[in-house]
């Protein structure tokens, strides 16, 4: 499973890439692999404010419906509208073209509660035994 360095991770398998007070959010390679073919992504409206770990949208694979959780509180600056037409980008490029939202981070301390790449990798090993 790909777990790029430099990103922060949630235990619910979202990632956030922080640049200054901005963060880009998506789901991890592991998450898309577990979901299987993604067929539907529902994202919030621009301008919505989110608390840390508040559900900001929904992702659906052929069989399953899952909530998406915002790794850090903030205001939604941009959403990836491309996913409406091409939800499969989440499978093909979860850390790139499959990104979901950009947020303005209101409380940088939220980031301290997230996992580093190595912590998330260890978490997957522990959680994913048997897969």
């Amino acid at each position, binding site marked *: 499973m790909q777990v790029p360095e430099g990103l922060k991770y949630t235990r619910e398998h979202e990632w956030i890439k922080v640049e200054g007070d901005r963060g880009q959010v998506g789901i991890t390679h592991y998450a898309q692999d577990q979901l*299987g*073919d993604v*067929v*539907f992504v*529902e994202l919030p409206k621009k301008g919505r404010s989110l608390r840390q770990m508040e559900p900001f949208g*929904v992702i*659906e*694979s*052929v*069989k399953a*419906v899952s909530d998406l959780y915002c790794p850090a509180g903030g205001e939604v600056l941009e959403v990836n509208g491309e996913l*409406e037409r091409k939800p499969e980008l989440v499978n093909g490029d979860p850390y790139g073209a499959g990104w979901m939202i950009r947020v303005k981070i209101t409380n940088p301390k939220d980031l301290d509660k997230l996992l580093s790449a190595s912590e998330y990798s260890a978490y997957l090993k522990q959680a994913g035994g048997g897969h």
Partner: protein
Amino acid sequence: MVPFGGWDMPVQYSGILEEHRAVRGTAGLFDISHMGEIEFRGPDALAAVQRLVTNDASRLSIGQVQYAALCYENGTFVDDLTVYKLADDHYMFTVNASNIEKDYQWITAHVIGDVEARNISDETALLALQGPKAPEILRKLTPVDLSQIRYYWFQPGKVLDADALISRTGYTGEDGFEIYLSPDKAEALWNRLLEEGRPFGILPVGLGARDTLRLEAKMALYGNDIDDAHTVLEADLGWIVKSAKGEFIGRAALEKLQAAGLTRKLVGFEMVGRGIGRAHYKIVKNGQEVGEVTSGGPSPTLGTNIGLAYITVEYATIGTEVEILIRGEPVRAKIAPTPFYRRKR
């Protein structure tokens, strides 16, 4: 892997969409050994079968298969199944995995006459080879002339070194075969079918694509679309109810319902708005609840989101616009013609 009727079954091998497309385009291989088989042997086998199922098994020739319902007295489903006529005194039911014990108990409690009903599920493996290339692939492994087996017919014969029943049936809406054989021969056949199918692009197929394939073909799934709370007529399966054949369990209730008229029925729908209507989502019309989704998901072949639902008959007409509550929000859908997918012959 997921638990399914007491078995550990893969939801997918390589990916649901890819597996689905393999079956529609070339071929897919399913291990459906979890399905149950119950056989009837004895001079009164036909009479026993006739009393148990809604369809008319007396119309079957040896080598023919028929879809039927096993009913409670009130006309709801114990199970849906296929009836095989192996000989004048020998029939077999193929039943859903999750219902084997329940069916067998129901059958032994209601079987009459000089006949023995036996649950042979544990000594029967079942592989399904489905898709337009299925005949070409299977032909390499059997001396049986497959072109002589028509849709919903079967023939006993050798497949590799196994004594098998080759049945031209399936749960995908495609051409294909279901092959019954001894469990100790199943793994070898599985491997050979994949090997022979490789040049065609065959894929092993899991439960996920089995569900999307059968949904496009509007084949009912027990536990979703049919159960002990809905009658065979409400399930839009009136064509498997043959009241003229004589007495069977559920006949009186179904005749009464037929005379009184249905209040709800199973229909297909297609999403108009953005969203996927899934099992148990409510259907509303003018703010009133008028139905409930029983199966729903993306149709890989059509590229739309489809499903089945029980709906008040008033709104069951094709083209009727309704709304499905998805996470509390009404999303537009319309009643659609079924099957959603029909193969070209």
